């Protein structure tokens, strides 16, 4: 036995296999027939052998020969024999052969007599691929007899557990149905079931079969329409969709209601096709494509669909600056044709295209004007029907083009006449206004022509025409129309008087509208150089004196303040933009009744009913408005007004600063951060931005939020820790600064970050309840400005708004923001994500663009400052590659971040102090040379305190945290010594 196997294998080694045969045939190109006949002899020998493997090999080769056109039907019996073997490979090749080699008659007999049991045996084989092969083979030679005999077997297979088999069985059933239609009725329910088969392959096979069947006899399949409708709206498989749409094509003639239902999903599909069109147009095929689309526009029944086509046509034509249009006359004609559409909403779009083309393509004007004149002449067609008023917008363009380029008009008189028809008065006001104005332009042109021909009477008649017709417009309800009409009417009357005196006026009338209109790119203004000697920053009038703004302050505490010498600030476009956005946000919050603004009731214990006059509005002259929170709703108007004034003031201020900057700014900017400490000392006044920032930080300076941290929060909340204070003092001594320690701290900050991590951190205060606004910059990569805000509704939450600005030339995407949680502060992540997951920033950044994202942090304790480390990962997309980048940053939450400026009256304050519930600590600061009121102002501004009372060089101050802690602060100057600060904390 074993020997036999070995022998068989060795035999096979010397046999030609299929590959050899193919190779051999290719090598015997000249005597192919001869070679093949020897091969066939060999195959005959092989088929006589016992070894089924050898036979199979022979059959394999026969397959190939058969394909080349040789008759192999003599081997049919052997082929079936091999097919009946249990080995998969052999069957595969046989199933191929059966199709091709054996003619139909032979196969029927053979299969019926010999192989039917074999095939059915295969059909129930446990191996899905065996069954599969049997089915595939069967698919090619289904005869009516075979179909009848196998129908029930195949039907059973339609419910096979393997989708692979189900799929094939479903498809074969189609062939069976065709050959043996009686089988359809019993099989149909099962087939219908397959439409909802969980396997998409089986589903699509079923759709296929039913669609094909339905095409032959649609009536019987109407009941399936809802099912197919569902499939059509839910399926994403285009193959299936095409079949279903074909099926509906057959069904709709039988059921008209279906058509209506189909409109929506079908238009969706069509839109996708239209989008494709957009991408495939070229100069060559544009006209052809648009022509086809215009045909569809004519045929389209639904207005929506037609409008969609219309916009697509215009989109396609106007894309990339009319790149694909080679003939603008054609385009104008298309636009004019489009105006004939009934009931379109896109008159405006067409009008703007007409204007755009006529203005920008000079060569087309003659043609355009002629077309527009015709349009005006037939204006009544467009306005005739009230429903069509969308399209009358094109008359706007037509009138304007005819007026502006009237020199190209063939018969301006006729157009003028058309524009002054009484019917025009039924047009919308803005169109009438254009009509009136352009009638005047036309009038000028007409006069010129008529005066040239010495026909002075004609000219006078023209004037008379205007005088007769214009009063209609003078009576218009539309102000614009009325105003223009009466103005022009008087002008014409005057002209007529001159004409009667035989004065030539055409020249002068034309001069009214002289000058050519040129298209200007949106950014063209930037290219205009500033003329020599023009100083855009110079004051035209003397700037209003500072004292004026001081006057506005109601009984300010710091009345003795001298006018400030503020340091220059850089302004750039985005400064205003940022400020405006923030302002808008605040405004929205303030106006939102659901936004809790007032302090919690605990406050009330120490407070009388707050009234406007009680509110200790601390007016500090800062460039950023300092809003007062906690006012009742009724005071909002006041607040708005206040803000308005402050805004004005700050604007004035900004201008002033800009001016100053011109003198000092430039040189200093070059200084790097840390060295600048020397600079700071002398001119370090109340506001902001005084420190010199390295280049990278300028954006922030300009942002208007950026104000140095006057005092680090540890100061105010220092309940304990003497050593800490000592440490701070030490630091101070080390630096031998004559400044307040806070500056120290601040600079220290700077120093560290700028140099170690190429980033800077700045804290500043903005308006109202907000908070230090530290800022980080990644030079030339990405800028981050962030702002920490206490969440007023929830004392344990802080909202950090981060503004990302892309400073690279590349596209940034897939940004992920992640912060390492500390025990105290945690980034709020969506439920179910782990504490190490980053939060996706919900936008991408094209170069130069900035956007804001907000992140919520939950904070447990607010009595200690926080520093959180985080990373931002993002993908930089350059032209040829994209790289993954990472940036580390730190977020600083200072204690004063959580404070809210809250007014307090002296009696309530006294009660609070007497209550004995406050803990206290004190701190002495040396080297403060700043005037006392400046100091107070800074504390108020940057740390959200309000002054309760001030007596000479002492002041008591109050603030409240988001969690309702009372913070009382007493500031004292000890003779010539620096102020002495003590703080109390409840």
């Amino acid at each position: 036995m074993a020997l036999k196997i070995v022998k068989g294998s060795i035999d096979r080694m010397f046999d030609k296999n299929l590959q050899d045969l193919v190779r051999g045939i290719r090598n015997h190109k000249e005597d192919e027939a001869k070679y093949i006949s020897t091969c066939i002899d060999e195959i005959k020998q092989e088929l006589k052998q016992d070894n089924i493997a050898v036979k199979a090999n022979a059959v394999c080769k026969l397959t190939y020969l058969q394909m080349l056109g040789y008759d192999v039907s003599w081997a049919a019996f052997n082929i079936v024999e091999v097919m009946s073997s249990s080995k998969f490979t052999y069957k595969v090749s046989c199933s191929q052969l059966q199709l091709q080699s054996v003619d139909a008659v032979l196969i029927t007999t053979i299969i019926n007599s010999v192989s039917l049991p074999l095939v059915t045996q295969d059909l129930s084989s446990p191996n899905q691929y065996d069954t599969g092969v049997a089915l595939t083979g069967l698919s090619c030679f289904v005869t009516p007899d075979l179909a009848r005999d196998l129908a029930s077997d195949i039907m059973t297979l339609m419910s096979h557990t393997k989708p692979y088999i189900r799929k094939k069985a479903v498809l074969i059933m189609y062939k069976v149905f065709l050959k043996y239609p009686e089988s359809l009725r019993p099989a149909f329910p099962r087939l219908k079931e397959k439409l909802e088969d969980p396997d998409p392959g089986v589903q699509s096979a079923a759709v296929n079969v039913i669609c094909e069947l339905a095409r032959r006899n649609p009536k019987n399949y109407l009941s399936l329409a809802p099912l197919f409708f569902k499939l059509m709206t839910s399926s994403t498989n285009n193959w299936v969709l095409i079949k279903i749409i074909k099926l509906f094509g057959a069904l709709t003639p039988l059921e008209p209601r279906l058509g209506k239902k189909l409109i929506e999903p079908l238009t969706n599909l069509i839109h996708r096709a239209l989008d494709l069109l957009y991408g495939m147009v070229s100069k060559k095929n544009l006209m052809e494509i648009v022509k086809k689309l215009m045909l569809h526009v004519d045929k389209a029944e639904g207005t929506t669909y037609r409008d969609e086509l219309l916009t697509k046509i215009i989109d396609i034509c106007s894309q990339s600056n009319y790149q694909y249009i080679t003939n603008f006359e054609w385009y104008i004609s298309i636009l004019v044709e489009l105006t004939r559409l009934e009931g379109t909403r896109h008159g405006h779009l067409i009008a703007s295209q007409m204007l755009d083309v006529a203005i920008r393509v000079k060569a087309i004007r003659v043609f355009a004007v002629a077309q527009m004149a015709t349009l005006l002449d037939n204006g009544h067609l467009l306005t005739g029907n009230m429903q069509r008023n969308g399209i009358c917008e094109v008359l706007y363009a037509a009138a304007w083009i005819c007026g502006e380029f009237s020199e190209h008009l063939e018969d301006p008189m006729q157009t003028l006449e058309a524009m002054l028809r009484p019917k025009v008065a039924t047009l919308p006001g803005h169109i009438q206004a254009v009509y009136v104005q352009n009638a005047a332009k036309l009038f000028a042109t007409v006069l010129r022509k008529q005066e040239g021909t010495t026909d002075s009477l004609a000219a006078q008649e023209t004037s008379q025409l205007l005088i007769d017709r214009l009063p209609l417009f003078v009576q218009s309800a539309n102000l614009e129309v009325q105003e223009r009409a009466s103005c022009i009417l008087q002008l014409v009357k005057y002209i007529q008087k001159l004409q009667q005196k035989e004065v030539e006026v055409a020249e002068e009338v034309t001069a009214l509208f002289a000058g050519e209109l040129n298209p200007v790119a949106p950014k063209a203004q930037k290219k205009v150089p500033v003329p020599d000697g023009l100083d855009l920053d110079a004051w035209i009038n003397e700037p209003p004196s500072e004292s004026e703004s001081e006057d506005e302050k109601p009984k300010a505490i710091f009345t003795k303040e001298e006018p400030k010498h503020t340091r220059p600030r850089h302004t750039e476009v985005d400064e205003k933009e940022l400020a405006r956005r923030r302002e808008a946000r605040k405004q929205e919050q303030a106006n939102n009744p659901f936004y809790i603004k007032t302090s919690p009731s605990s406050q009330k214990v120490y407070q009388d009913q707050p009234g406007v006059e009680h509110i200790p509005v601390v007016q500090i002259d800062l460039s950023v408005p300092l809003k007062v929170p906690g006012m009742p709703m009724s005071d909002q108007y006041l607040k708005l007004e206040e803000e308005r004034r402050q805004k004005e003031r700050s604007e004035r201020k900004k201008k002033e600063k800009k001016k100053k900057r011109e003198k000092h700014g430039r040189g200093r900017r070059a200084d790097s951060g840390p060295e600048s400490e020397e600079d700071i000392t002398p001119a370090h006044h109340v506001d902001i931005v005084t420190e010199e920032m390295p280049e990278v930080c300028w954006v922030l300076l300009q942002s208007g939020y950026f104000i140095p941290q006057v005092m680090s929060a540890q100061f105010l909340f220092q309940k304990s820790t003497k050593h800490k204070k000592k440490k701070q003092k030490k630091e101070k001594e080390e630096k031998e600064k004559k400044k307040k320690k806070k500056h120290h701290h601040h600079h220290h900050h700077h120093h560290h970050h700028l140099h170690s991590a190429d980033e800077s951190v700045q804290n500043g205060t903005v308006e109202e309840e907000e908070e230090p606004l530290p800022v980080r910059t990644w030079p030339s990569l990405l800028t981050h400005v962030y702002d920490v805000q206490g969440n007023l509704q929830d004392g344990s939450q802080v909202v950090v708004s981060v503004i990302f600005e892309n400073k690279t030339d590349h596209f940034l995407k897939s940004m992920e923001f992640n912060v390492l949680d500390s025990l105290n502060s945690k980034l709020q992540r969506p439920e179910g994500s782990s504490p190490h997951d980053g939060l996706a920033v919900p936008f991408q950044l094209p170069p130069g663009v900035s956007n804001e994202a907000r992140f919520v942090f939950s904070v447990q304790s607010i009595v200690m400052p926080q520093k959180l480390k985080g990373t931002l990962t993002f993908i930089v997309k350059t032209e040829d590659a994209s790289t993954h980048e990472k940036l580390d940053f730190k977020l600083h939450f200072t204690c004063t971040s959580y404070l809210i400026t809250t007014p307090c009256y002296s009696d309530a304050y006294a009660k609070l102090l007497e209550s004995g519930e406050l803990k206290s600590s004190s701190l002495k600061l040396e080297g403060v040379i700043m005037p006392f009121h400046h100091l107070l102002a800074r504390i108020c501004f940057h740390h959200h305190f309000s002054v309760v009372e001030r007596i000479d060089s002492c002041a008591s101050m109050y603030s409240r945290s988001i969690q309702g802690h009372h913070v009382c602060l007493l500031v004292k100057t000890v003779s010539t010594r620096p102020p002495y600060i003590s703080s109390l904390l409840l």
Partner: protein
Amino acid sequence: MQFMLLFSRQGKLRLQKWYVPLSDKEKKKITRELVQTVLARKPKMCSFLEWRDLKIVYKRYASLYFCCAIEDQDNELITLEIIHRYVELLDKYFGSVCELDIIFNFEKAYFILDEFLLGGEAQETSKKNVLKAIEQADLLQEVCCSLPSS
């Protein structure tokens, strides 16, 4: 679909699949006629033509013509899509397929076609599933070959 033919630029038939029972003689006649007609067409001419009462959809990929005959109501574009999908399948299976691949492994080409089309209708629209089925079958075949039958 009635049948699919693959032939080279020289007019050599590389693969044929008939979904309707026809006699060999008839098949040969059709093949000869179609090969001639299609090869005579210029490259810029339309890929669809009417032939007898059928429509012929063909597309040339390198030196090979893929040619399908469909019925009157069938859609030509989807047939073109089917041809392309089949080429994609071949390409994926053989790895940048060429004519020689189909010559020497024509049974594989048939097998792929059988997994993709059945009885002239698209059977499986997912490329992944088709290739999975073929891989499985290949595996099965290898097992068979390594254990020759007695």
